[in-house]
């Protein structure tokens, strides 16, 4: 009986995992297909990677995506950390609930709505001030608004798990509040901040919808390039590009997870061996 139940559970698990990951594995396999026709296997080759790397359009899109992701991740990390600290450490200041709601709203807001509203906002701004030009700047700002929320949530949970004893102890030993922040709070938050940075980086690299709304002429991000090409027809070099993106995102997410788990272990270990 027990045996049968465990094989049932195991097969369900395999089915679930297959459902999630077989398409991606197929895509990776077909990116090494020699044939020009996507669904027909014509032998192993890396020719589409060569085609891809020779495409100037692709390099431009990748460059833009990476630049946006880098700037976005850095700003999101700084702003998100500050927001998280404010939410956990500043007590019940006036409007705290509203602030907390505003920070986390982008997590649940439909992307189409976020994209559309940001587009209208940027158009209004450029009418009034002639700034910003739609492109790199607008996409980056749009990405920061939602990635910040993820970082804030990570930092918030870390901080409330930490308690205030360590910061109190530092103050008790003569450290002024700013000193406490740099000596104690930030070093202890560092793994969380890096995890947040990586998460923000991959979120930005992934985003298609919001970027499509707020981008301008000639500023295609990598997901936008893929999407526009696929609309015309399946091409094998897109498989290669998608494979590269999967690898990059996977590395980013794994790193972020590893950092978060490691910090949780550190905190648990301190709590257990008290």
């Amino acid at each position, binding site marked *: 009986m027990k045996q049968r139940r465990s094989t049932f559970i195991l097969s369900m698990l395999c089915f679930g995992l297959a459902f999630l990951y077989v398409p991606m594995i197929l895509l990776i396999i077909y990116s090494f297909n020699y044939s020009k026709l996507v669904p027909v296997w014509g032998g192993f080759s890396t020719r589409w990677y060569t085609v891809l790397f020779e495409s100037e359009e692709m390099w431009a899109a990748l460059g833009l995506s990476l630049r946006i992701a880098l700037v976005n991740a850095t700003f999101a990390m700084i702003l998100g950390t500050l927001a998280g600290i404010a939410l956990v450490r500043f007590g019940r200041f006036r409007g705290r609930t509203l602030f907390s709601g505003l920070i986390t709203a982008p997590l649940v807001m439909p992307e189409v709505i976020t994209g559309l509203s940001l587009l209208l906002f940027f158009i209004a701004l450029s009418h009034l001030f002639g700034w910003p030009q739609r492109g790199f700047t607008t996409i980056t700002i749009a990405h920061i608004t939602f990635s910040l929320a993820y970082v804030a949530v990570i930092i918030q949970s870390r901080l409330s798990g930490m*308690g205030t*004893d*360590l910061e*109190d*102890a*530092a*103050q*008790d*030993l*003569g*450290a*002024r509040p700013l*000193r406490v922040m740099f*000596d*104690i709070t930030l*070093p*202890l938050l560092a793994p969380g901040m890096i995890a947040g940075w990586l998460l923000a980086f991959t979120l930005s690299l992934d985003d298609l919808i919001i970027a499509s709304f707020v981008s301008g002429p000639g500023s295609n991000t990598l997901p936008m390039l893929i999407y526009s090409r696929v609309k015309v027809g399946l091409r094998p070099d897109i498989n290669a590009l998608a494979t590269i993106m999967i690898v990059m995102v996977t590395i980013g997410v794994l790193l972020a997870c590893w950092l978060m788990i490691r910090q949780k272990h*550190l905190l648990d*270990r*301190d709590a257990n*061996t*008290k």
Partner: protein
Amino acid sequence: MPQQTDYSYRPWLDADAEPFIKLRGISKKFDEFTAVDNVDLDIYKGELFSLLGGSGCGKTTLLRMLAGFETPSSGTIYIDGVDMTEVPPYARPINMMFQSYALFPHMTVEQNVAYGLKRDKIPKDEIKRRVEEILSMVELSDFVKRKPHQLSGGQRQRVALARALVKQPKVLLLDEPLGALDKRLREQTQFELINIQDQLGVTFVVVTHDQEEAMTLSTRMAMMDAGKFQQIGEPTEVYEYPESRLVANFIGSANMFEGRVTQSDVGHVVVTSKELDVEFYTNHPMSIIEGTKVWVAVRPEKITLSKTSLDASTNQLKGVVVDIGYHGKTSTYRIRINNDQIIEVSVPSQKRPRGERHSIDWDEEIYLNWDQSSAVVLMK
């Protein structure tokens, strides 16, 4: 208590002595909840003062106000004659040892201990010397390069103590200092704490919920409940002469008999319990108006058991043994008296019982006696 003319060991008996820590009218409210309620307290230099009470009694809030982490809603805190009420924690001549120890996990033992000295801009070689000195005092010289998670519970406790003491504070606050240690280590550490305090002469204020710990450590202790002090005094005073039923029950245990005063002379009172149909003769320093409702409290170890009735000049009750708890060095007898009240009696295991397991056995009829100087009369 014999009166001493030399007050150096017991400055609280000297009316002219100036307290080192003075709390005047201290209250702390969190929204509707009053954690500390209009409290006055004097603590003298070199004391080891314990704040004792159940959880939520306000003892930790009081300690945090001394450290500066909480600002009193009203009242003033003086330390060494200076008003410290509004001074932030980093500027107070006070250090605290946290219940969680709060060792910085990303720093080594050495860095943890040196942290406070570095904040004071003390020259490097002096920091090094003082850190070495204090770490050798707590016997941790071999562990300087370790991180906190590589230490045992007892070692962490000593790092926390060293870190708080290395700045040579005027007052050291200790929040449940031994709470996280196991029993054997706790007893050993208690005496180490007393020795260190003796050597350095720093004033200690300890928060604890453990009454035995408080009695072992303290020069004086304050029992707190619902944000107020119930009684402040030396351990023997609080244990032997509790002022209320609450104190008598929290510090040790006590058997209570309710009754009314039927006779009161200088030095003793007679309390009659209608329910039990007995009179209790108890020494009491002041006279009490006849008819007042009072409680006679007797500690379990102050009652003797005998199989035969003694002469009636002592306080005597009759009962049946319902339960025996054998602890090794003592046994606790639970005895039911005629109003169904259960009386606890603690009997030292002075002689080994011959033949039977216990010299007095289950369901045996027994007489309980105590001396008139052993009980106390409580009015609240």
